[in-house]
């Protein structure tokens, strides 16, 4: 009864807010109220950064949601009722409606964001007794298709040294690249490659105590691969790891407890933690300072979804209950996002999900823009497929909120079309004179201004830690064209898309321009033309100054974003495919003569380590590159041997060494993996180091910097390739 009355109070309150949003006020009142609410919002935001006690958190969060809602809803109601360009002809009407729909999309997405983030659930691992006879058997599946064995090797090693009773831990490589079908490919070269790769994987499995499973034919992609493996294993729980997802040692210690506490639990998902930059981070050189792109989802959204019981299986770094998969008849394969699809099936049977926000894998991002697009198009298409083929509103036993949020998962990908419209709107108005919004400058100031600023403030509050301002827009821009295209395919034929593996571990030998760049040239050309037309119109049509200035600002922002996008498509050389993580641990370097030096690790990978040696004025350290050095990890009391590959001496006398391991034994290789990727604490610390965030203004400056440094770099490279080189070769020909 108490619950009901509170819930009713909330519903009525939201209705009142909705009603308030529809009230028509005069300009003065609208300006005063909206800017006063905006000022309050900013004050609450600032207060949230000062008063960090947990009990205040929810108050700040809810206040920010409610104030932002009031401001934004007033804008949307005004936009819907007062500004539709219904009197300027059919073209204006259609274009205006498209722009409005793009804005409605943004508004609904914001509401979904508020709903999801209203009370994130911070789970902590549940302790359990490792000696319990009821401890479940765990099968670790490492599905692979065509990835290099060097990528799979650390994952297998790390999986086999996960802390769990050895008799209950079973690791398997599920090799879809070594199927009978692949090994007997009509192309003899492909067949021989498949055989060689399979042999190598079998050898890795054998060397590190894992199983190797393959099958006859490559049916149903990853889902088919896992389902095939299910016939050969019998563990109570399944830990599924992408082949590049190197797990930490405590993975199962942190996750299995949830299954023992809740018999209805189907899956515990953990973050996909990446230790290599995605193409945006790589090409704009933001990797070391800015948080990873996927952290917004895994660090903010998933805990929010978990509160509503809607976190879902993301294909890797998750533990699943085998009995539920059996009940479902295996991993679902109707769509190309088998993970989310399987979750919705399990929810349909009444099972629950959980999310533990602790990074426990170290994975690789796609290196190239094209690889990134392949991955994102697959996700977008898959989510839309789920909505079309397994509509959450038609699934039994799902809660109302779960249905809404599953709808949101498909709806989210509408950002692509929305962003594309936003990029085309300024040219439509400034070049083609299409009136998209029937509003005056003072209207825009009173309604659009506060709404835009409120959106920036609330975004900064919720996501500022894991996403720099305006970087989201850049991600949206680089995905907009191809995801729109991909979603259109699904809408035409929901079953058409096929599973495309994300390419990882690519080595880029030289700089080049991505082949997918053309749409951005066109969009940029339109927006630059819009700027020129806008400036001319500003001179010749002073009566429309307010609106023209507003759209000019918009076009300028679009140009900056598009230049940034061109910076992303300017692919930089990357010779090293092996990821390297920040690592801090005391070490003692023991030289061949018995001389020792204390140092601290700075970074680590499977094959090497960076070590910082502080200055010692009394006994300056002399190191020879040819000398083999023993690296003793004092806290572990274990040592590895290595050669010095690089030495950098700082002015104060301190040294930075780059060491290459000499891993001649299994134990050494295991230790190297454990040092680099074994600790989830270290991964958390590494991520936290990139969570300082940026202010809205600084974020904007960074965006401008990216646009003008990398975007312009794109054009210089292009000019160099197409003009200077041609001139040079022509000169050489003449000379010859």
């Amino acid at each position, binding site marked *: 009864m108490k619950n009901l009355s509170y819930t009713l109070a909330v519903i009525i*309150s939201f209705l009142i807010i909705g009603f308030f949003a529809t009230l*028509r006020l005069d*300009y003065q009142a609208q300006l*005063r109220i909206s800017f006063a609410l905006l000022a309050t919002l900013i004050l609450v935001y600032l207060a949230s950064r000062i008063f960090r006690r947990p009990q205040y958190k929810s108050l700040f969060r809810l206040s920010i949601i409610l104030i932002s809602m009031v401001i934004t809803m007033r804008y949307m109601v005004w936009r819907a009722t007062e500004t539709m360009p219904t009197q300027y002809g059919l073209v204006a009407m259609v274009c205006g409606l498209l722009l409005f729909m793009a804005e409605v999309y943004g508004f609904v997405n914001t509401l979904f964001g508020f709903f999801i983030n209203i009370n994130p659930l911070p789970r902590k691992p549940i302790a359990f007794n490792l000696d319990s006879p009821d401890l479940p058997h765990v099968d670790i599946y490492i599905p692979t298709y065509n990835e290099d064995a060097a990528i799979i090797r650390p994952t297998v090693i790390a999986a086999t040294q996960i802390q769990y009773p050895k008799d209950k831990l079973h690791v398997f490589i599920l090799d879809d690249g070594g199927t009978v079908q692949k090994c007997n490919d009509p192309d003899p070269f492909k067949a021989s490659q498949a055989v060689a790769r399979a042999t190598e994987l079998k050898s890795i499995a054998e060397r590190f105590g894992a199983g190797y499973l393959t099958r006859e034919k490559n049916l149903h992609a990853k889902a088919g691969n896992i389902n095939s493996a299910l016939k050969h294993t019998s563990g109570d729980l399944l830990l599924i790891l992408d082949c590049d997802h190197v797990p930490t040692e405590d993975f199962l210690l942190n996750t299995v407890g949830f299954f023992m506490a809740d018999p209805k639990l189907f899956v515990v998902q953990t973050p996909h933690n990446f230790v290599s930059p995605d193409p945006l981070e790589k090409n704009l050189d933001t990797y070391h300072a800015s948080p990873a792109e996927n952290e917004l989802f895994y660090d903010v959204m998933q805990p929010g979804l978990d509160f509503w019981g809607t976190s879902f299986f993301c294909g890797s770094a998750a533990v699943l209950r085998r009995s539920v998969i059996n009940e479902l008849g295996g991993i679902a394969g109707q769509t190309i996002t088998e993970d989310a699809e399987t979750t919705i099936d399990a929810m349909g049977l009444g099972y629950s999900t959980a999310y533990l926000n602790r990074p426990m894998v170290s994975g690789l991002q796609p290196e190239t823009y094209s690889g990134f697009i392949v991955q994102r198009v697959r996700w977008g298409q898959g989510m839309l497929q789920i909505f079309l083929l397994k509509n959450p509103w038609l699934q039994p036993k799902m809660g109302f909120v779960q249905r809404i949020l599953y709808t949101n998962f498909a709806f989210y990908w509408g950002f692509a079309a929305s962003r594309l419209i936003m990029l085309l709107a300024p040219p439509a108005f400034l070049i083609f004179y299409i009136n998209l919004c029937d509003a005056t400058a003072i209207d825009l100031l009173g309604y659009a201004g506060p709404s835009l600023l409120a959106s920036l403030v609330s975004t900064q509050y919720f996501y500022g830690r894991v996403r720099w301002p305006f970087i989201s827009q850049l991600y949206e821009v680089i995905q907009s064209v191809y995801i729109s295209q991909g979603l259109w395919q699904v809408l035409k034929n929901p079953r058409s898309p096929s599973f495309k593996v994300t390419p990882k571990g690519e080595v880029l030998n030289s700089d080049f321009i991505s082949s997918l760049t053309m749409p951005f040239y066109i969009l940029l050309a339109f927006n630059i033309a819009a700027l020129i037309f806008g400036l001319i119109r500003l001179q010749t049509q002073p*009566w429309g100054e307010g609106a023209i200035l507003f759209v000019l600002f918009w076009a300028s922002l679009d140009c900056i974003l598009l230049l940034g996008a061109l910076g992303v498509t300017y692919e930089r050389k990357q010779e090293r495919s092996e990821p390297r993580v920040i690592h801090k641990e005391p070490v003692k370097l023991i030289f061949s003569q018995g001389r020792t030096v204390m140092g601290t690790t700075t970074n680590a990978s499977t094959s090497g380590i960076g070590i910082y040696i502080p200055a010692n004025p009394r006994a300056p350290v002399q190191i020879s590159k040819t000398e083999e050095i023993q690296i003793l990890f004092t806290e572990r009391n274990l040592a590895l041997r290595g050669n010095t590959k690089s030495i950098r001496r700082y002015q104060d006398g301190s040294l930075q060494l780059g060491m290459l391991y000499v891993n001649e034994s299994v134990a050494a290789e295991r230790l190297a993996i454990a040092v680099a990727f074994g600790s989830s604490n270290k991964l958390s610390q590494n991520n936290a180091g990139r969570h300082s965030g940026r202010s809205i203004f600084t974020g904007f400056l960074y965006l401008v910097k990216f646009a003008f440094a990398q975007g312009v770099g794109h054009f210089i490279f292009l000019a160099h390739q197409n003009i200077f080189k041609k001139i040079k070769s022509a000169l050489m020909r003449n000379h010859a």
Partner: protein
Amino acid sequence: MIIRILKLIFIVTMLFGGLTKAEEINHLQLSESASKAKNFRFSLAKIYGDDQPLMLENTSSQVTFSLPVPMLWTPEKVTLNIKGAVSQGLNQRSQIAILVNGKVIKQYPLQTEDHNLNLAISIPTELLKVGYNQIKLMASQHYSDVCEFTEDPSLWTQINLVESNFEIDAKPSNLIATLNQLDGLFDKSSWIDQPTVKVLTSGKPDSAELTAISLIAQGIGQRYDYAPVTIEHGIFPKQLAGFNTSNSQVSVLLGSHSALKEYLADISIVNDKKPLIAVKTLSGTTNQYLVILAGSTPEQLRELSTAFALKGVPWPQLKSLELTDVQLPKTDNLQKRFSIPLAPTGAFPLRALEFRTTTYSDRNSDGATVKIWNSSWQGRMQVRLHLSYAGGMSTQSALNILTNGIMHGTIPLNNPQGGSYENYAVTIPAGALKPGWNTIKLQPILIPQSNGGQCQPFFNGNLGLTIYEDSTLQKFGGDELTKPDLALYSGKGSLFTEGPLGKGISFHLTDLSSDTLSTGLTLVAKLTQMFERPLLNSTFTTSQKADTKQQFWIGPYTKLPANIQNVFTGILPDHIQIDVPLIQSATVQVNGSFDNYWKLLESIGISQTTPPKLTGVNLKLSGALNHMAFIASDLVDGNTITVLTASNQTTLKSGTDALIDYGHWSQLQGSFAYWDPNAESLYAVTYADAPFSAYGLRGGLGLWISQNPWIALLLTLTFIGVMTLVLRKVLALYQQRKHCWTEEA
């Protein structure tokens, strides 16, 4: 259409013997009676409709006045007295010319010793005609004989419109009135401020006579066009000798042949069973006229008064006429005027607002102003103009769109080759339109490409802008007014009458006293003027049964039926709070520790203590409403009920006489208004004072917040604060329920 049908009926009637014993009379014959001369004096401010001083600027400037000359008076001496001031900078060549109907009658130098303008111009009466005469003052102003800047600021002459006046000595026209001069008898060009017309019956009118006199009132109102007219009801004496000729120059008598026997004595009547209309000069007078409507049956009285009510009927040049057949076209055949949609999203052409396709070719043209009714709170409007402009104008030429004096858009006329726009849209944003009557002004700014060059006469070039009447206005959004507004009556137009010619309108009198009747008739005449059409199908009655959509209740408050009294009990006050605005003219520093902070806050509109904006007096209305008159309007069961009331019949009559004058009537707005018949001001309770009942909850709340934004903000933030706490509690309960095992763990 109506007029055409009636003309046809009339001609047919005359051709086939409907006319009996027609008398041929000379038009406008002078009576042999001695004339009684009278002096009239009225200011230019009254004629010009503005009491602000008038400036004649630049080298060439002019102003035109219309001097009315009524048919019932013959001017003997007309003097135009002009008072004003002239610029010290004017030289000897500067002069002012006075033109009467296009003919120059006098020229005066503008360079005077004391720089005052003090002219007494005798206007030749032979140049004046009955009706409106154009009096033009044309100033030619110079400061130099050579190389003059035509718009030099020293070139001006100021005319004081209040002190300047026409002084007229006139004598009655002594005309022998005939039926074709009916319009002249009720002359809008009258020199009398608010003429009175007597409508007389033989006794207390019965229902048929009530209907008839209301139609007569409509005829009188229409003939006076826009000029306020008071109609007084009375009873005519049986003997002509007892006829009182006091304050009315024209009287309309209605009755049976027998009752009017004495008055019809000098008129030849063939058949006294036939309805008769006659005009005559009251014997023994030279300037008193009688219009006599004699009918034996209710139907005949209605026919006669209907014919009288229709302006434009081609009455013959006869003293009297028996009407054998007057047929009104069926209501269904009447064409509605161009319909102006009151719906919030309707679009309609400018011609529906009486704008006609116009070409502007003057550099200083005022442009056009249309008046538009806005029945909603907020909501925007779009003006979509169809226009063409001439080649040869400067690129700075433009057409400005102003709403209530505020500019909201401008249309460039910047192609030197000229051009046209089919559908140029200018949006008048929400908030620019106030509820009630609004003006939209189309103001052309036409600038020639070249002014002729230095030291050359100013060359206007080819200035030209045509605005077409098919340009449209469209309204969008807004919270619709849910109550009737008295301002609808004060605006000119035909917005309020949905049914043709008054169908669905009823006037209910509380009693048949002369004052109440006079009040009702005066109101009918006024509404006929405002609606610009007769209300032939309306009901004028003492019945208390009412089922019409538009009901006017007229009578003392105590005599109103209980159900009407109940409706307005909450509106009619027993005391009046008269607010007097206080204007702060200076700020005196008061010592305090936070003065600077308060100054800062005050600069953004937050006051330390709200300064009093109004003070006022609270007047107890002793007795029953005392000497005030009231008009109130409300929507009751879907019907608009308007009550015109006062404490007694006399106050009501004098209040109504005051109300119909230009000043009071134009101030009508909102749901309720009251005024002292002897005072200038009228106090209206507008919907801004009662937002919630007028615009519904949504519109009303919007209006209230607009008036009290800071209070609303405080309430909003308080609401958000409370909601935050409730929401937090709900989320905690949800978490407890859904994730209890997690918590326990």
